[in-house]
């Protein structure tokens, strides 16, 4: 199971990196969110995907899955959600003020 997850995560990373290297700002933002998905699945996967009950004591099970990565992922999800929404608004504002979403045209000063 871990092998398939690793392959899926690898594909998410590859597509994310490809999108980040593109010219359009929206594709870049999509790329960052794909990478974030990959990261969260990676956190889940590296903590081993053993079978076990959901981490609720009421389940009265023999074994449970590891609760720590779930807490870490939850934290990381809300953080990346906040950052992504900020990034979207920033892209919107930048489009309004600068009139382009082409990263080539956002290069900056002439002396760079």
């Amino acid at each position, binding site marked *: 199971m871990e092998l398939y997850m690793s392959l899926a995560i690898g594909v998410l990373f590859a597509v994310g990196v490809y999108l*980040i290297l593109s010219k359009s*700002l929206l594709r*870049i933002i999509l790329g*960052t969110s794909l*990478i*974030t998905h990959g*990261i*969260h699945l*990676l*956190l889940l*996967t*590296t*903590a*081993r995907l053993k079978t076990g009950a959901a981490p609720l004591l009421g389940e009265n099970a023999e074994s449970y899955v590891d609760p*720590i*990565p779930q807490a*870490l992922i939850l*934290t*990381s999800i809300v*953080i*990346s959600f*906040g*950052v992504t929404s*900020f*990034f979207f608004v*920033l*892209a919107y*504002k*930048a489009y309004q*003020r*600068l009139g382009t979403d082409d990263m080539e045209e*956002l290069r*900056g000063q002439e*002396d*760079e």
Partner: protein
Amino acid sequence: MNNLVVLPLLIPLLTAVILIFLSKRVKAQRWISIISVVINIIATVLLVAQVQNDGIQTLFMGGWMPPYGIVFVADMFAVLLVLTTLVVTAACLLYAFRTIGAQREKYYFYPFVQFILAGVVGSFLTGDLFNLFVCFEVMLIASYALIVLGGTKRQLRETIKYVLINIISSSLFVAAMAYLYGVVGTLNMAHLSVRVAEAGQGGILNVIALMFLIVFALKAGLFLFYWLPGSYSVPPTAVTALFGALLTKVGLYAIIRTFTLIFYHDQAFTHNIIAWLAAATMVLGGLGAVAYKDIHRILNYNVVISVGFITFGLAVATKESLDGTVLYLMHDMIAKALMFILGGMIIAAAGTNKLSEMGGLIKRYPLIGWMFFILTLALVGIPPLSGFPGKVLMVRGGISQGDILLTIVAVASSLIVLYSLIRVFIGAFWREDYLLPIRDQKKWHGTAYVSVVGLFILVIVLGLGSEWVYSYAGQAGEVLANPSIYIDAVLKE
């Protein structure tokens, strides 16, 4: 257990929350934010005294013993950096009062500063890797807001790059943490150190160590600094001073902490790479500092050079060079804040940031001119001033370890700093014939001068009183050189 440890984090956090409610009342915001920083400085001074007398102070959140809960650890290194951070923030706030403008002040400038402070202080004090990530994000999200606040075209453009690079590095941080958790199964730094020592660092753990190095190098501007010169030249002076003094130093702190506490077993591998990165950073930063005629760029590349120089102290990794690193880090935070504020004053006075278009300012602004000159000497490391003791310890450590080439690069980088900053001094303050005719004398009011002169006096005092400062920095270097002190303090209580 010592509840004082969390106060430096708690005070700015509560202040920020209060300030959000007072967003339209500028006077109240100013008073509350400066009083909160002053109270925080007092609390931190008490903490420094406790750490000096009783050793490392710890606080187990919620009473959960490590490695199960989150632990806050105040060793001398962290506490000294917290104190320096607070002093620098106080100075930047005082400067901001008169210069930042009512428009920004009404749109949550002061709460953002307090949130940055909370993130920076939290990063220094935490003893848990994931908590370090969260504190990084607190700091970074507040810095995104501060860098774009005002919304000019240049700010929007550079913020996109800054946000993008930091999202990528934060993702890599979580990935590195996922791998590390997968291998050793813990996130508490002291416990990590024990587990890494048990497992024997090599193979996969070296790969993970390098991932952390890449992540923190992106944050600190170590070799991967290409985002820095652009991003740091767009926000107003008070914000740039805050960023230049604090943000890259948090990345440096993380590198130093990780590679002295957790991944210190295979130095032939990791520290060799760190040494190359440090040398490359100094060379590339030096090229940038010499190449540009734009004050923003010159100052920003000077930040890059000093990041390389501080990493050189870590790469050498003797007790002596680590002492020097602590001393130099403190000096650099204060001196860089002063450098950016003075640079901002020069730009404001001349009305341009191009060196070729300004000149003759010494007649009208002698105080700024001479302060900038002496600050230049301090940054280079001329003996009675604050840059000297740290530099000399680091260079001595480098020679005693036989890293001659690296040491030569480090010493040469000082000359580049001298050349680039003296060029700013000569360009801005000499050349009488260039005196700009029409522009009125720009005046800075009380608090702006208080902040500049205060920082300037600190630079002098840190230099003259280096023996006294060393008694603290030596204790910090002790913990960095012997990770077992830190581990015992956290795990065996």
